């Protein structure tokens, strides 16, 4: 199995009045291509922080982070966001759709930043709508959808650029269990059939079980059993 990403002694802290508060401490991870990982841990243990760093949205203070053979830690901001843009899709607990845009436009947005031609974009978006069975909702605004539907749009939007790595921060946190299950099925299918590497943060053992490995986080440190 090829390694997708690897962290060595990854550490993040923030300075506060009295001293340093460690958000992450000495995280060593190796994640292979095609893995489906679940991160678990109590609230405030640093799960989101870790996910954001892996997604190259946030910085860290010490350690190394290699993504697909490239050293993220010594990369310039511009190249890092380029790497992020090309390889990573994000899904949030709160969906984070853009309120002013329709479903279709929301899914189209990442493609605009990939310099795709308009006609090509339309086709790609149409594919996505089709695949997630939301063709009928394409002209609605996020506020007009249920939570589960919004998260479907969120997933479609994350996948539309065909990322190597899908990061999902409590994607089912705001959904009922039936909706949650649906999402997990989709993840599972994606992982199996298309080989998309998935790292999800979840509080539910049941959801975590969809993955093939669980990483436990406590106070910013990985727990090895």
């Amino acid at each position, binding site marked *: 199995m090829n390694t997708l990403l690897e962290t060595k002694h990854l550490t993040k802290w923030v300075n506060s009045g009295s001293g340093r508060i460690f958000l992450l401490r000495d995280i060593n991870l190796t994640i292979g291509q095609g893995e489906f990982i679940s991160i678990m841990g109590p609230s405030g243990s640093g799960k989101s922080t870790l996910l*954001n760093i892996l*997604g190259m*949205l*946030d910085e860290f203070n010490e350690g190394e982070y290699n993504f697909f053979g490239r050293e993220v830690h010594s990369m310039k901001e*511009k190249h890092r*966001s380029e790497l*992020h*843009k090309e390889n990573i899709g*994000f899904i*949030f607990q*709160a969906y*984070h*759709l*853009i*309120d*002013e845009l329709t479903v279709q436009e929301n899914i189209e*947005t*990442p493609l*605009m*930043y*990939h310099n795709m031609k308009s006609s090509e974009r339309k086709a790609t978006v149409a594919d996505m709508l089709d695949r997630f069975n939301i063709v009928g909702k394409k002209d609605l*605004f996020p*506020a*007009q959808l249920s939570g589960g539907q919004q998260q479907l749009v969120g997933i479609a*939007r994350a996948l539309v*650029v065909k990322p190597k790595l899908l990061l999902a921060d409590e994607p089912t946190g705001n959904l009922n269990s039936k909706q949650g299950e649906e999402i997990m099925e989709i993840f599972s299918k994606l992982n199996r059939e298309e080989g998309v590497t998935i790292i999800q943060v979840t509080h539910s053992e049941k959801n975590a079980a969809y993955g093939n490995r669980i990483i436990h986080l406590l106070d910013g440190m990985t727990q090895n059993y």
Partner: protein
Amino acid sequence: MFYNLKIAIRNLRSNGLYSIINIIGLAVSVTVCILIALWVKDELSFDKFHENEKNIYLVGTKQTDDIYWATTPAPMSIFAKAEMPEIKDYCRIAWYDNSYVEYNNKKFYGNDFGAVDSSFFRIFDFQLLEGNIQELFKDAQSIIISETKAKAIFGEEDPMGKLIRLSNDISFQVTGIMKDMPKNSSIRYDMLVPFEVLNKTYGGNGFWKRIDDDWGNYSYRTCLLLQPNADHQSVSSKLGEMVTRLRQEQGSGMRMTFRFSLQPLAKLHLYSLDGKPAGLEKVYLFSIIAVLIILIACINYVNLVTARSSKRGKEIAIRKISGAKLPGLFRQLMEETALLLFASLAITIALVYLLLPFYNELSGKEMSFNIFDPSSLLIFGATTLCVLCLTGIYPAILLGSFKPMEAFGRSSTGKNKHIYFRKALVVLQFTCSIILILGTIVIGKQLDYLQKKNLGYSKENIITVPQMKMQGHYDAVRDELLKNKNVSGVSVFSFDNMTVGSSRMGVSWPGKDENNDLVFHCAWSRFEMPELMNIPIVEGKLPPGTPGENYVMLNEEAVKQMKLENPVGAKISLNSDNNYVEVTGILKDFNFAKLNENIKPLIISFTDNSWGYLYVKTTGEGTQSVIASLEKLWKQYNPDYEFNYNFMDDFFEKTYRTDIQTERLLSVFSIVAIFISCLGLFGLVTYTAETKTKEIGIRKVLGASVSNIVNMLSKEFLILVGIAMLIAFPLAYFWLDKMLQDYAYRISITWPVFALAGMITLALTLLTVSWQAIKAATANPVKSIKTE
């Protein structure tokens, strides 16, 4: 009340940036408004303080349909009053040319002397502090002096009855003291002597024996006081008939028709003699600019308040639900506006006081501002009220009418219904600013063009001084000057700065169409002039021999308009009498008037005693030594006069002073306009960035780069500014093209002008917008998303 005030202050403070933008914008714009209002008030007040203001007229002599003189012959008014019952009284006013007053062996320079009829204080409302209005002048050697001059000359002594000597060696007895004539009077003198004094120049040997007989000298301003219901049009035509008749009765073969015009004194300052509202146009222009600038600042206020209305909406909705009545809410919002306005007015007052000295310098006026002055209070009150209405009522009504449920409910599309209104206002703001910027550029370019324009002679390194008593000693003066190695040439021209200020009609020449009398400008000069000034002789040559009255030269335009076939050698008669002079040569056309006018026909004669100005050309070095030589000669010939010299290089500044002032003021105003517009834009962008923080974060997660985000935030505003340009360009073209018609020589408004204005505006917009945009775009998306 106090409770509300506390809330209002808190609201202003919690929206710090927006409050500051509004306060600064309003303060700057109201300041500009007040400064403009002061200027307008000053312009409009000219000559309005006379009780008889409506019935006082200045007589102009109509030379042709477009050439007017503001002066008449002296006898006209005497005859006119005798003949026409409409004329209640008259007063003639002339410049009495003296350089100083001497008292107790001390000389006092810098006085303006006027020779006036004794009716002066009866017609005009200048205040006589001491003296007798009925018997103003005891005799021809009486003088009235102004309060300030009296203090300067006599100190604590009582000036009445004292003798002072003027530089022309005549002694005058002080018979009155007047209040200083106001600055907004077109008639302004420091000292007044009786009109009869001018008789002294009539020796009795000349053609005319007395000034009151001299119909040939058009040097005197005539003011008529008409009966309250008299028709000034009919008086002016009667004047024409009367003078034509009188001149014919005098014989002398005159077959000329004389025409006069009557201009109300109150219009003297803002209208030119031909009735064109030259000065008034500027008053209008600046008034409009004042309104526009206030409008721009008010738009900022309205835009920022409405932009934030959804945020405020929630607060107001809560208040409404908890039972607040609409008038109460309205009052609260108005109070907030009033508070904000109050803060900006405090700054305004400080700014006005601070800027007034610079403004006076810029505008060439001496305006004063005192908040407690009733008229200042009026300006202040009116402006304040306008701003309060514009800024307060709309937002207050808007917010007051907020539907509570709408404010709470998630707006389904997220679109603010006022967004188009706001956009339209931004377009309006920038349209105004761009028009002003274009105006500044075009007028600046026009002035630059006028300055660089080849006038047909070279004005470099020329120093001029009045000849005065050097007149008649020209050869000696010239030879003396030429001894200075830095002097490369000397000549004389009848007027300073090569501007020709006299003209005549009734010139005749072979083949003249008698129905078509031409007006000729006339100048006197010396043979050295064409070479000194680099004016080529295109045909013929300079007159032969010594200067005399038998030869003249013409300019090309004269030849053209006279339709002379063989101009060189032609004999022309200057007075339609039988004295003919010969044309020896033709000078290439040169501009001897402001470039608002085309070149007119010109006759140059070369007489021995040419009164006028000495023109000295230097090599460009040792200017100081040339001035020293001139001063030495001056002391020798004109010991009683102040030595004053003029560099022709400064000519432009002096000639186009009002145009330069307009341009300067306009550029200041357009800077203010664009500044306030950008300030508003800054507020809007800040607001947009603020409300879109989360969206920006999401977009960054989705792969947007910094430049994607900056584009997204700026695009909207750049489009608005682009629309503003499309509207502003044709409007500005229309306005400026019309304004340029005032100049016979003018630039054409071409696309680079628009390109420049467009680029300036876009650059400023981009600068304003991108600061906030970049700030928003580089923010950490993780944090942006987390907030909420």
